[in-house]
């Protein structure tokens, strides 16, 4: 499932830190637009490198990027000790 929100929490002994609910769906929209804008250049690069190099495998970037983003939901990273705390959660 495509994550819609990212929860970010950073806290340290020196500062109060901050907590944030970020609507990552906005980033996905910008990222999607960027991928579309880059498509002609990637096609060109694929053509140029088709003799020797990655060639049309470069076009795999699109489905692979989509697959990673789509499956990012549920990722949870949390570290905590006496001095600091970091939490990143995609939901």
């Amino acid at each position, binding site marked *: 499932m495509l994550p819609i929100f990212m929860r970010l929490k950073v806290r340290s002994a020196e500062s109060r830190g901050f907590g944030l609910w970020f609507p990552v769906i906005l980033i996905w929209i910008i990222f999607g637009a960027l991928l579309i804008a880059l498509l002609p250049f990637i096609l060109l690069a694929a053509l140029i490198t088709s003799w020797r190099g990655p060639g049309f495998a470069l076009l795999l970037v699109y489905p*692979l990027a989509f697959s990673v983003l789509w*499956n990012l939901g*549920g990722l949870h990273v*949390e*570290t905590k*000790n006496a001095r600091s705390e970091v939490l990143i959660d995609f939901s």
Partner: protein
Amino acid sequence: MTEERKKILEMLAEKKISVDEAERLLSALGSSEPGNGSADGSGAAKIPWKYLRVTVEPGPGSPSGDKVNIRVPMKLIRAGLKWAALIPKNAQGEVNKALQEKGIDFDFSKIKPEDLNDILSNLDELVVDVDGKDKVRVFCE
């Protein structure tokens, strides 16, 4: 119901085997089924787990008291592995060479999703005790 189970029950119905024998055979079959720690290497095991978890709990001798809790979706791991297809072949050779120099005979280009399934289906629960200071647990859920 699998073909093997059917066969065992048919043999029981035909009185070719006793109830005890049938029970033993069925339990042996159950322990080798996917998701129950299959080690048959068929690669066809369907992973019932959704997440790979890594936790670090500080032990009594831990100086920093670090606590780590990581949950990675299995699908994300599989999607990440597919990026390996984009690594140029000569770069893959360099990676493999560097690994071999460290004594690790491993070819990254040969990793397939089925291999990952094999690894994960046998990863019931792994606990690593680091010098009695921290307890590292790697498991699936």
